[in-house]
């Protein structure tokens, strides 16, 4: 018999995240090790009258290709890629890995070249998503490699992952619907703010957000979920910040990142390890030194850093910001091949101010600014 938490996860994604219906063509993609979840998702899509198609990856194929492909092969856009993107009604991406360091020895430039080739597909994906023609959701399958990165046993990590989705509840969909209402109220409250100031250890950063839209991340595009985010003004960010958790990109860790901003741009950057890599990433293109996202994590069942951004950016009591591409639905105009989220812990003495007024302290919104409860249900 299937793990009931997996059954619920699949049902929440099919029902709440994607609201699948009769005839929807749903691409389900993920690694073969996530087979139990891929099968449950197939079942959930069928149950709602959809047409599931699986796109499975196996261990070693990427490394074999990336290790030997010519520039021409790396930069080639397969003729099916755009047509597939046009054809599907919804996409579920399951993340999971045999080894999170599998591609460590592959030159990041080679990975970037392949990504650049897929840019037209990404562009069409964003267009269709913005137009509401394409629904999508990213979720995670608890696997040993992720558990290991989190210093947990697989069983403990499963409890963490399913707990973050409140899948122990008999009716998680109802809980997520209630939470969605709360997050929307929070966005409403934040929408009048012109400048957010982040105060924490070695951190005093002002982020201009006037006239930008706050979006509630309520379990549609990510699951588990729980954050509110916006796109900062491209020329207003000023001050300095020290990120509590390592920045992770392309399977690499950059530790103790400190950034200084002037006029919206990173003007100085340091790191305890991986500093060269950090400098290279920030110089990737024009938009890579500008914030594309500022967000506050609101899932208090996610209570620790696990080196998977899907979870880390939702940690209740943290804020995060991303260098690079912004989401157009927030009003952001920043364009970049990069979107790198970095997380700053506010639970121990951190503070947020809105136009000079404290609104958030020690990882919680202050009563008076926001009175809704963000506590996980159950």
């Amino acid at each position, binding site marked *: 018999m299937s793990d009931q938490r997996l059954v619920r996860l699949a049902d929440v994604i099919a029902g709440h995240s994607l609201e699948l219906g009769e005839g929807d063509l749903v691409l389900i993609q993920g690694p073969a090790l996530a087979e139990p979840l891929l099968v449950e998702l197939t079942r959930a899509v069928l149950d709602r009258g959809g047409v599931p198609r699986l796109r499975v990856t*196996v261990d070693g194929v990427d490394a074999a290709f990336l290790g030997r492909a010519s520039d021409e092969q790396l930069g080639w856009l397969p003729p099916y890629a755009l047509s597939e993107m046009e054809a599907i009604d919804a996409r579920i991406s399951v993340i999971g890995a045999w080894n999170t360091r599998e591609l460590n020895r592959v030159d990041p430039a080679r990975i970037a070249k392949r990504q650049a080739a897929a840019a037209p597909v990404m562009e069409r994906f964003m267009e269709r998503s913005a137009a509401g023609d394409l629904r999508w959701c990213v979720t995670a399958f608890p696997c040993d490699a992720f558990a290991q990165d989190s210093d947990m046993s697989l069983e403990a990590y499963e409890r963490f992952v399913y707990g973050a989705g409140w899948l122990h509840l008999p009716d998680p969909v109802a809980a997520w619907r209630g939470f969605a209402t709360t997050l929307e109220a929070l966005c409403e409250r934040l929408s009048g703010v012109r400048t957010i100031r982040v105060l924490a250890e070695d951190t005093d950063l002002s982020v201009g957000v006037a006239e930008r839209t706050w979006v509630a991340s309520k379990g549609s595009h990510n699951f588990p979920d729980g954050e509110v985010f916006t796109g900062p003004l491209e020329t207003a960010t000023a001050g300095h910040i020290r990120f509590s958790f390592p920045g992770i990109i392309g399977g690499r860790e950059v530790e103790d990142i400190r950034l200084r901003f002037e006029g919206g741009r990173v003007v100085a950057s340091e790191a305890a390890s991986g500093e060269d890599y950090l400098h290279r990433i920030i110089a990737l293109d024009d938009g890579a030194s500008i914030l594309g996202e500022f967000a506050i994590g609101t899932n208090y069942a996610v209570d620790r850093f696990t080196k998977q951004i899907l979870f880390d950016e939702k940690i209740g009591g943290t804020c995060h910001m991303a260098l690079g591409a912004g989401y157009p639905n927030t009003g952001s105009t920043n364009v970049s091949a990069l979107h790198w989220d970095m997380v700053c812990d506010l639970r121990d003495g951190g503070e947020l101010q809105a136009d000079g007024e404290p609104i958030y302290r020690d990882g919680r919104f202050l009563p008076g600014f926001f009175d809704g409860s963000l506590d996980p249900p159950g």
Partner: protein
Amino acid sequence: MTGPARGESVVFAPVPDPRLTTLSELLCRYSVDVQPGDLVLVEGPALAQPLMVELVKSVTDLGGHPMVRPRLETADALVMERASRSQLEAVTELDRLEVELPTKTLTIWAAENTRYLSSAPAEHLAARSAAMRPLFDRSLERIAAGDMRWCGTCFPCHAAAQDAGMSLADWEDFVFGAGHLTDADPVAFWREQSARQAAIAERLSAVRELRFVAEDTDITVEVGGRTWLNADGHENFPDGEVYTSPVETATRGHVRFSFDAPYNGREVSGVRLWFEDGRVVREEADRGGDYLTQMLDQDEGARRLGEVAFGLNDEIQQASRDTLFDEKIGGTFHLALGAAFPEAGGANRSGLHWDMVCDLRQGGEVYGDGELLVRDGRFV
């Protein structure tokens, strides 16, 4: 230094079975001849991952673009069991692209469990196969037109070994042996085999009518005007047969197949067929008879022959309940119900292509236009 507690665990980088590397190279260089710019679809169950990785290396080294599509039989089985009629009949753009775009396709046969579809209602399987038939036909058309080259191969796995009654290690030896992959020069072997088979095909192409006589078997098929094709490792690997598509309306008589004829993971054995004017008018099986009838009733073409062939791989001597190998056993012939090969001149269309093998090695005879061609499985 490493302490004694860990001293025994020498860590090796994963090294594939060298025969898999040879297989991959042979498939890409000899079988489908990957050229720079080719889009090469590699499809098969996820458990064939070691061969998929080798194929990605070979394809990439040859300048091709690998398109790897691993499948999960648990998910496939679930769809076949639970899907509604409209879900089973859905043919999507994603399905079409897999058929229309590749210039080379490598299909890997293997299974976690060869009976994985056994809980799926036969009418579901038939509905799915009927819905996919236009795409199946389209594949055959693209192959016949030279727009795509296709090869199906076997990745040795426990499930097939178990069906063959062997350990995995023995099954690997059998599979790789049948492909002559441990020969000093496997390609040279296959070129020689190809020449030997070409001579037999040449001889058969002069024949109008073939009559097969063996235990409980006396069946006549007409092949006049049809083209005999030489299966020399280009479309199946391992290989070793010559085949054609018989005249659709002429087959008459009866046949009893010697070996189990599993299809879609269903056990079917002791199949006997009676033909009149090219059509199966009566069918029986010791096991799986109802399933046989359901499959034959799926469409108009399913009761007619799409193939007649001689197995010519002398390295394969025993039946293994795996059609890929059984149909190549040196000294056998086989017939397939359903889809014919357009490149052989066959016109039969069906969602079915079901090969069944008959042993000629003990007293079997084949006559070509009345003249004895084969005795005890050997061309005279």
